């Protein structure tokens, strides 16, 4: 699968990309929200792992922007966050088109399995 990893923490994008590639997947990464938005819009991926709390242009801004431009449907965007977001905030993001939410830290093997089975997963709030 082609996975787009978006996180301002370069250590996470580098390590996660490395691990996903070792697990047999293609990866692209972005550490900047605005750059990430154009990458998502290009639809050159199967799944997006999106960090919420990025400076300047956050994951929430990205989802809002995609929803406004009607470019979020059929995208598998998994919100992947260490932030303490409320259930209602996550429900709101899913309502706008995010697929689901995973909380950091997560076992990398669980993350890989979740990504690989994304097409069979129902859209739902944080795991």
């Amino acid at each position, binding site marked *: 699968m082609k996975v787009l990893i978006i996180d301002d*923490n370069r250590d*996470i994008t580098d390590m996660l990309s*490395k691990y996903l590639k070792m697990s047999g997947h293609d990866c692209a990464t972005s550490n900047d929200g605005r750059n990430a938005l154009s990458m998502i819009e290009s639809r050159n991926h199967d799944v997006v792992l999106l960090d919420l709390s990025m400076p300047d242009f956050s994951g929430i801004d990205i989802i809002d922007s995609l929803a406004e431009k009607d470019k979020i449907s059929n995208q598998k965007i998994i919100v992947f966050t260490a932030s303490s977001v409320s259930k209602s905030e996550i429900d709101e993001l899913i309502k706008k088109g995010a697929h689901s939410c995973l909380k*950091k*830290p*997560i076992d*990398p*093997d669980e993350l890989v399995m979740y990504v690989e089975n994304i097409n069979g997963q129902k859209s739902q709030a944080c795991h």
Partner: protein
Amino acid sequence: MDKNPKHAIKELQQVNLLLNKIAEKIETKSSEHKINELEQVNVLAKKILNNPPPDTKISPIVLEKIHNDLKTPLTPVKAYVQLLLSDNFGKMTDSQKEKMRSISENLDELESAIQRLF
């Protein structure tokens, strides 16, 4: 959304989990692949080393846990490097040994940096 110490800790824990899993996967590879993979991880580890986390107020208990979590994956990686240098997985070329020695030195540096940080 402001990042707080808990957020920083969770992100560090995530990086640590990934480092552990990458080390596990490297263990299953052949000598040739091990060297290539260790070189790549070495580059990533150096980047982490050169970008220490911002100052945050973290309790001593949590600091100790993070210290142990960071040090733990280094042990098997260092052990494997020494085994490779000792030709335990087949004779290495001089060029390969030179790369492995560089990795070994950087691992020692990483270990020292972790000690200094905590």
